């Protein structure tokens, strides 16, 4: 574990109904960054260098997951800055919010088997050309928890082709496709690689005691390292 680099400030947004915000903050600290609490009603990003949209059920996931959260005051700032290159990682509900906000293409729908599913999921890292995956190797297999009710990634054929062609699929499900995601997609990025959405939960795989592995840590160290390099 690297020493705490207090100059790297990563914001974690808490929406009403966010659940994994404390876990995301813990993961950032373990990766050597400083976690900064952001509130959905904030109209200021507190000078953070990057943002994590954590998992949970923002606004109860009523209507559609992420549909109401995208209109939160803090989101208009994040959307604007993300277009300018601010690194943003959306995990699970955060991924749903990024799709609803059109920062990422496609959408997440009800699992094909219609149940919530919590399992230790094997993934293959497909792209390391993003802000959040550079500490992995392409082809690396990892196991991290997955837990969602609406995690089926869908998009039209053209978009799917484009995502693969441009290397924007960052991880795919291995052995089991747990939710019916098209082409086993577990996570994607935008063209620039600063915005990443991931359905499984790397923040729950950062301690041997509580997670199935330590495979989640590189998502956060990737960001910390890139930001240290940048400053």
């Amino acid at each position: 574990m690297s020493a705490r680099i207090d100059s790297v400030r990563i914001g974690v947004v808490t929406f009403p109904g966010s659940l994994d915000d404390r876990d995301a903050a813990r993961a950032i600290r373990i990766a050597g960054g400083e976690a900064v609490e952001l509130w959905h009603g904030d109209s200021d990003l507190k000078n953070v260098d990057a943002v994590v949209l954590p998992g949970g059920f923002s606004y109860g996931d009523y209507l559609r997951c992420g549909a109401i959260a995208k209109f939160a005051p803090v989101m208009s700032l994040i959307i604007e800055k993300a277009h300018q290159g601010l690194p943003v990682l959306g995990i699970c509900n955060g991924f749903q919010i990024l799709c609803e906000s059109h920062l990422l293409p496609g959408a997440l729908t009800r699992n094909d088997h219609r149940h919530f599913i919590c399992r230790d999921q094997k993934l293959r890292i497909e792209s390391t050309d993003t802000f959040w995956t550079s500490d992995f190797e392409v082809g690396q297999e990892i196991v991290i928890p997955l837990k969602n009710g609406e995690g089926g990634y869908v998009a039209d054929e053209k978009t799917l082709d484009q995502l693969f062609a441009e290397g924007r699929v960052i991880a795919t499900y291995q052995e089991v496709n747990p939710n019916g995601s098209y082409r086993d997609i577990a996570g994607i990025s935008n063209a620039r690689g600063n915005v990443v959405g991931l359905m499984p939960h790397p923040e729950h795989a950062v301690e041997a005691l509580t997670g199935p592995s330590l495979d989640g840590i590189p998502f956060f160290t990737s960001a910390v390292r890139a930001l240290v390099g940048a400053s």
Partner: protein
Amino acid sequence: MARVVVNVMLKPEILDPQGRAVQGALGRLGLTGVTDVRQGKQFVIDLDGELDAHRSATLDKLAGELLSNPVIEDFTLTVSD
């Protein structure tokens, strides 16, 4: 007083696991000849006063941005009084 009903359905090309499950169940429970089932959402919205052009436009916009996700869903909107 106006009542607006917005129906939201998954686009035909998007898999509808709930509709599929209902189709299976209907068949098992004795309803023959079901060729397709789609499950959507219905919003019944009650509004005070007249539904003027401005509010009507807002409603239409929100039906397409908030109540449905254009990437995967279509909507219809009907007004009754």
